[in-house]
């Protein structure tokens, strides 16, 4: 779930992710006011045209995802079911491995208010702060 470098070449092939699989995603403590996930936690990075970075469970664990953060203890980890993410308007899930992280997966699509509200509903915290 590292921020992908613009032209980073991956030695891993992109794979199709089944709908029943899960994605792990770090959520920073500033996006967890009073322990609840803020809709603002779901955003495309580094720009709105990019995707929202997550890790595919096939090649990552929640702990590995957390440890990729700059300060791991400042982050919780949530899980999202791929099929449910794909049901949210305008959202597509694409496996985009990078050299340093084979699990890297992007959720592309505008993170408009509807998408963010629905994402907060389907996520579940697996590693709390």
């Amino acid at each position, binding site marked *: 779930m590292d921020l992908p470098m613009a032209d980073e070449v991956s030695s891993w092939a992109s794979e199709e992710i089944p709908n029943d699989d899960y994605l792990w995603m770090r959520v920073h403590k500033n996006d967890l006011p009073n322990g609840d996930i803020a809709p603002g936690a779901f955003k495309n*990075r580094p720009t709105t045209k990019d995707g929202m970075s997550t890790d595919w469970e096939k090649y990552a664990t929640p702990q590995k995802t957390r440890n990729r953060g700059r300060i791991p203890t400042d982050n919780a980890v949530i899980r999202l079911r791929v099929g449910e993410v794909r049901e949210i308007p305008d959202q597509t899930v694409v496996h985009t491995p990078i050299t340093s992280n084979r699990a890297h997966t992007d959720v592309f699509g505008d993170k408009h208010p509807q998408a963010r509200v629905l994402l907060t509903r389907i996520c579940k915290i697996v590693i709390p702060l």
Partner: protein
Amino acid sequence: MLERTAEKIEFAKPDRDSCAHKDRHGFWRDEPYYTWSQPRKTVWVSSSKESYYDHLRSKAQKRFGCRVVNTTQQLKIARLFLPSASEINSLREAIDKSRSILQLKDDWDDAGSVRYSESTWNRAQFFLMSNALRLWRSHRRCFAAPRILPGPEGSIDLHWKTADRELLINVPARLEGSISYYGDDKGEGTKNAIRGKNLESSTDAEWIFLWLMK
């Protein structure tokens, strides 16, 4: 009472040896001064203040033909135009508390998110307060305070979650950007959800708050 004390001091019986009053002491009497020497000065103590103001009120009423109301009536009138203290205070408190968003620096989430500008925050708080007052004037109702949260790309999120409904309004960082929203009812799901943009430019944005409180 203070005024009365000051009066007594001013007109106190002078000392017999006082040069200024040596020829006058015979004229001093123990009765209050106004009974013999000069007309009573207008002294208003707390108990008579009300009647004095009543007097001024009726005088103004006669002179200008207007209706002058007392404090109780003023409060009743104010209640018609302003939300009650508790309702507006909780909203005001939430807005004040949300100023902490402005303390966040660039890269506040260790993932490159940008800071929040004062103009975006001002736009968000103006949107809330102006709609709260407008709603009160037209419907005598006030919506609950939202969670005011950091949104993506320097925008600010206003988030309500009631027992039945959820509403997210996004105030973008760019001043020319339009305010977007999404809301739905748990019972109805996304079928009858409300979503759109340009909420701020709408002349009757209060409908969204009426929807939320339904």
